């Protein structure tokens, strides 16, 4: 594949001039970029996801369309090929995450956290050195739980459990909540901000909470 500057990539990928040379340069750029994306995706998924070659080509094709569609948004702050690869990775990983999580419902994820009844984590009885520290830990846990329950909406709690505790991708949580990735990040940020403010208000030093579990 010939080395191209950012300007050359853009010129060749944009609507071609209607002459033979323009058309063939355009087509060659498409072929080269698609091949580059397929190679890149091979490296991107290695050790992370098991993906058949045919799927990589589908992802590359989907990414290519997105790239062509968004050429005007390329700000030229990186190599064009770096920018193109990041889009391909985002396209591929979004789909791979969707597949990996497709059978998991938010309800299932959250249910274990909603159990009622006595709360006596085993860790407390196992590893705590003294009754005093055990007591301290229990108080901290109860206090933080109280704050969480009072400060957060159901939506915020659910999102927090799914993303923070269970590692569900933000976009997957968003999809199930009828939202999008950006809005859900903001919702989580709001939730954290509320908790932080309330902890400060109550004079709970976070250092103290963390220290209780050293």
């Amino acid at each position, binding site marked *: 594949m010939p080395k191209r500057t950012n300007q050359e990539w853009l010129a060749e990928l944009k609507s071609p001039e209607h002459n033979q040379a323009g058309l063939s340069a355009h087509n060659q750029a498409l072929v080269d970029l698609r091949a580059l994306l397929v190679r890149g995706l091979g490296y991107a998924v290695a050790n992370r996801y098991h993906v058949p070659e045919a799927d990589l080509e589908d992802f590359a094709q989907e990414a290519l369309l997105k790239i062509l569609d968004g050429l005007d948004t390329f700000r030229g*702050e*990186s190599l064009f090929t770096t920018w193109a690869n*990041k889009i391909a990775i985002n396209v591929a990983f979004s789909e791979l995450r969707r597949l990996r999580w497709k059978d998991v419902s938010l309800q299932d994820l959250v249910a274990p956290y909603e159990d009622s009844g006595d709360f006596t*984590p085993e860790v407390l009885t196992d590893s705590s050195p003294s009754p005093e520290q055990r007591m301290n830990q229990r108080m901290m846990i109860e206090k933080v739980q109280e704050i969480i329950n009072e400060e957060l909406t159901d939506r915020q709690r659910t999102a927090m459990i799914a993303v*923070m505790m269970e590692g569900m991708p933000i976009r997957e949580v968003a999809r199930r909540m009828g939202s999008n990735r950006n809005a859900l990040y903001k919702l989580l940020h709001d939730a954290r901000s509320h908790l932080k403010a309330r*902890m400060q208000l109550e004079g709970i030093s976070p250092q103290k909470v963390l220290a209780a579990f050293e």
Partner: protein
Amino acid sequence: MMKLEPAMLKKMVHAVITTRPDELTCDECFGEIDRFVEMELAGKNAAEAMPLVEDHLQRCHDCHEEFEALLAVLKALHAEE
């Protein structure tokens, strides 16, 4: 009622206390990540030059995963040349 294990609680408290008003969203992070990765590859201190991107990568598993993948891709493609 939400029940928490101590390990989870610790993780959550850490995320809460490090919350800052100027955090990037995933889309904003995505907009900067190609430049961030290239700096990293050039041996510059990207985390210091772009602290908000670094902050987002520390808290967002998805963006971090894509960052690492992009870094690996560029390194591998570079090695091919």
